């Protein structure tokens, strides 16, 4: 059964230096508040896993929390590049960053395999691309019935997955809706999981298109209203597109970024 705890307790207990951590949410419901708490608590040497690194990983990388990034598309959606990511990759600032690069289909299937208790997943992918030359978690398998060769990707089983959802009930059952991305798979693939929610309610009224994560499949739930901003929480608040644009300016410059970190409450 999921424990209901504060965000700082949850991060202190569930996210350790050196962990493989996945913060998921496909544009929608990105767990920004949890990411910021990881920065504040000064975690180091994380392997950060996420299909679309987005601002949240640009911030974690810039803050020096990560030593490796596993991803499939690293940009500021609708705006441009992730400058902290580029600075880490190109100049090792503030720390060198290793990468493991996949396609979306590959990453999604890695989570599916992880959630399914399988060591790998099969897909039609990567054939003819240069990705397998650089990514050891891409291989091939042969169909035992047809002899056809297909792509195989290694399962992802993060030490900890963090997602944001609209609601949980007092028993810790979680409900999210709108674009639900790979959140279910990312939570089920992980050894430990934290779900931050907009609100904790007495009862989870059914919602069309909702994904429900039973309490017994989640480690901890923390109530964090606004915890997905500047991304959005369908039915609660909209995406703050201006903040995404403003990040382009902040993140281009190390000094501006350090100022942003200071505002977050981080001294460096």
């Amino acid at each position, binding site marked *: 059964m999921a424990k209901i705890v504060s965000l700082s307790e949850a991060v202190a207990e569930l996210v350790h230096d050196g962990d493989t951590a996945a913060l998921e949410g*496909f*544009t*929608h419901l990105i767990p920004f508040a949890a990411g910021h708490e990881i920065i504040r608590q000064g975690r180091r040497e994380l392997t950060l896993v996420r*299909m*679309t690194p987005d601002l949240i990983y640009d911030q974690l990388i810039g803050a020096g929390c990560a030593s490796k990034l596993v*991803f*499939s*598309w*690293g*940009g500021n*959606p*609708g*705006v*441009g*590049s992730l400058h902290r*990511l*580029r600075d880490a*990759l*190109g100049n090792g600032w503030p720390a060198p960053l290793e990468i493991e*690069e*996949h*396609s*979306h*289909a590959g990453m*999604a*299937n890695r*989570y*599916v395999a992880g959630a399914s208790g399988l060591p790998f997943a099969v*897909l*039609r*992918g*990567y*054939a*003819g*691309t*240069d*990705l397998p*030359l*650089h990514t050891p978690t891409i291989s091939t398998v042969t169909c035992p019935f047809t002899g*056809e*060769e*297909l792509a195989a990707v290694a399962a992802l089983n993060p030490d900890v997955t963090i997602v944001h959802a609209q609601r949980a009930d007092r028993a810790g059952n979680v409900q999210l809706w*709108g*674009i*639900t*991305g*790979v959140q*279910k*798979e990312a939570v089920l693939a992980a050894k430990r999981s934290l779900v931050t929610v907009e609100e904790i309610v007495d009862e989870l009224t059914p919602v069309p*298109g909702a*994904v429900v994560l039973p309490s017994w499949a989640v480690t901890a739930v923390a109530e964090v209203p606004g915890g997905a901003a500047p991304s*959005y929480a*369908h039915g609660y608040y*909209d*995406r703050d*597109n*201006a903040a*995404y*644009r403003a990040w382009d300016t902040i993140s281009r410059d190390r000094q501006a970024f350090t100022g942003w970190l200071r505002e977050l409450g981080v001294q460096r």
Partner: protein
Amino acid sequence: MGAAASSPDYTADEMMSIAAARSLRDGQVCFVGIGLPSTAANLARRLHAPGLVLVYESGTLDTRPAELPLSIGDGILTDSALTVVSVPEVFNYWLQPGRIDVGFLSGAQLDRFGNINTTVIGEYTEPDVRLPGSGGAPEIAASCREVSIVMRHRLRAFVEQVDFVTSVGYGTGPLDRRMLGLRGAGPVRVITDLGVLEPDPETSELVLTALHPGIAVEQVRAETGWDLEVSPDLMVTAAPSARELETLRGMRTVGSHPDDRNPDRTTEGATE
């Protein structure tokens, strides 16, 4: 440069979006990346293809956004979708089996065989420019029944050979797709702000098959990094109609802002 000089009524980018929209037929199912592809597909839906089915990789199936989304996972896509599925499902059940008629892609580099690079300029381990990466593009390129590429025609982008194959066009020639087990037809057209390239049926090399109004062959060749062949049946694209231009210009991006006038700033990444 480009068409703008000779055609004061519309920009080269507008011509490109409109040409891309025209390439879509009513009733087709289209896998849409953000930026130019999303603009073109939503324009087509408002013009001649009201029954165009848009699928975004965020899992929104048959979505009909009233405004253009800024990102691939905007709420506006959910609200107007027939249904929303998970990201694994959109790739495994909808894209992979070949249910999508047209995939729209873009890239930082495109080569003579229609291969696309959205990963790095230069060496992978020591890149000159680090690009966003693959996103959904490799499997879109592999599995859609056909692929349309939309990108601005610039010498640095239209190269002899891409630095990194993120998404396969025709590989190194006409036999590669079959040998690789790719089941879609590959890129059937490249729509740029100067004209249209299509693969030669024999060699699969991209050749110039249409010029936008006011563009000269030499202009296109000057912006192409290989010895671009010109089709004997070279066409000239019809200029944008008033209705096309008006509809295009009337499309507003969600939460819009002066910067949103160019909804294609992210064309360096194929999709998110």
